[in-house]
């Protein structure tokens, strides 16, 4: 069973040496900018930068094969679906219609539609190297410390840290319960009828939930014994000090964000329209 929850890949690289806080800021800057902008130029710059970051992290493609396969399937599926649903959406958006060729019936392939779908795909692709970069170069225990450093209340950060800590345990619980129920003939496979399957699922989930509730009691008691939540602030054992490299990257993110927003909102809309 794979116990590496978020696929942290320890290595020695420029990106790994940055503090978790910086990486979280990079992740958020890219996510927000990519979310707000529909400007192809900005999106392409973001993509190039995220690929550069990926290069710097020394992570190999073979190490993230599963995730990249998933992304390719998702984007292809989404691309086809967008076209099937409304092949003229690009025309509505950009205001012009340049037919490239005719498929069948109402399905004309237009340059506008292809450009629109290219933008959507671009937005999905950008998030990918950045999320991978963040999760595979940040130690999970540093994750909570970084959240608290950017201003998330420490109780919430602590919840995140608890979640990461207990995911493997709960996964183990689930497998133990599922296997012992299976030994009694409680199955979840395709050969079981749907209604039976749901009933059987509850037979596995209820013990899982009840043990989890017990776990919650145990953990919260021991946290209380150690005076958790007594003070307004909290320090983190794994928190890294920010270095010059960190400050420069954070400053770069700030500039990138501002420039990105200015370029995006030129002309009163966040769409870049090459057709006019």
């Amino acid at each position, binding site marked *: 069973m794979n116990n590496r929850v978020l696929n942290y890949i320890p290595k020695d690289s420029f990106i790994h040496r940055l503090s978790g806080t910086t990486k979280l800021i990079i992740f958020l800057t890219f996510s927000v900018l990519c979310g707000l902008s529909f400007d192809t130029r900005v999106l392409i710059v973001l993509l190039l930068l995220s690929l550069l970051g990926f290069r710097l992290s020394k992570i190999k493609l073979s190490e993230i094969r599963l995730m990249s396969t998933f992304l390719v399937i998702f984007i292809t599926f989404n691309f086809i679906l967008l076209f099937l649903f409304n092949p003229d959406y690009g025309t509505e958006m950009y205001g012009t219609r340049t037919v490239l060729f005719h498929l069948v019936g109402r399905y004309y392939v237009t340059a506008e539609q292809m450009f629109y779908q290219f933008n959507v795909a671009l937005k999905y692709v950008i998030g990918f190297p950045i999320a991978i970069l963040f999760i595979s170069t940040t130690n999970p225990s540093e994750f909570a410390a970084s959240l608290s450093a950017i201003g998330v209340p420490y109780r919430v950060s602590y919840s995140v840290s608890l979640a990461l800590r207990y995911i493997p345990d709960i996964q183990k619980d689930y497998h133990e319960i599922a296997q012992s129920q299976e030994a009694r003939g409680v199955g979840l496979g395709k050969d079981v009828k749907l209604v039976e399957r749901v009933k059987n699922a509850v037979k596995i989930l209820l013990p899982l939930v009840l043990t989890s509730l017990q776990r919650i009691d145990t953990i*919260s008691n021991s946290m209380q014994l150690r005076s958790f939540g007594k003070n307004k602030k909290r320090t983190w054992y794994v928190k890294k000090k920010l270095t010059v490299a960190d400050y420069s990257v954070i400053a770069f993110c700030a500039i990138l964000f501002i420039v990105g927003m200015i370029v995006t909102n030129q002309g009163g809309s966040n769409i870049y329209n090459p057709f006019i």
Partner: protein
Amino acid sequence: MKNDAVKKVVATGIGAALFFVLARFVAVPSGIPNTNIAFQYGIQSFFAVVYGPVVGCLSGFIGHVLTDMSWGGVWWSWAFGTAVYGLIVGLFAKKINIESGEFGKKALVNFAIANCLANVVAWPIIAAVGDVVIYKEDFKIVVAQLAVAAIADFLCAMVIGGLLLYGYSKTIAKTGSLDKE
């Protein structure tokens, strides 16, 4: 800080971990091709009813973002949908009052109303607006997609969450359950 507050911090963490495990590793086919039963929403609604709106909201949000991250790429609009879903179901926690040890018809009706409202607000409203704003997707496609998601999640949450709450209520001693002999 009272015990209750510490408990909520822990419940949020464990709830998020359960959400993650069910969403990421547990795939039970629903009968429709390539679609699995979304157990995580059953668990999330359970946590929202037992621990209230804040835990329902945050455990779902954290669980959802972590799950998405493990695939690479966070779908923020859907993550916020999950958060709002947990929040709304949690607002009904006092009405359902599972701690009384009873999960009867009245509680079930309240649970159904909570779920109905939460699913309508979370998917076809919050997540749809997010998808339209972020990806400029055609509003019609998004609403169609999310309406399907809302119905599926409603069914999952009602059946799985309802059965879990019923099972859980059986483990609590009812008030006034002692008889004089």
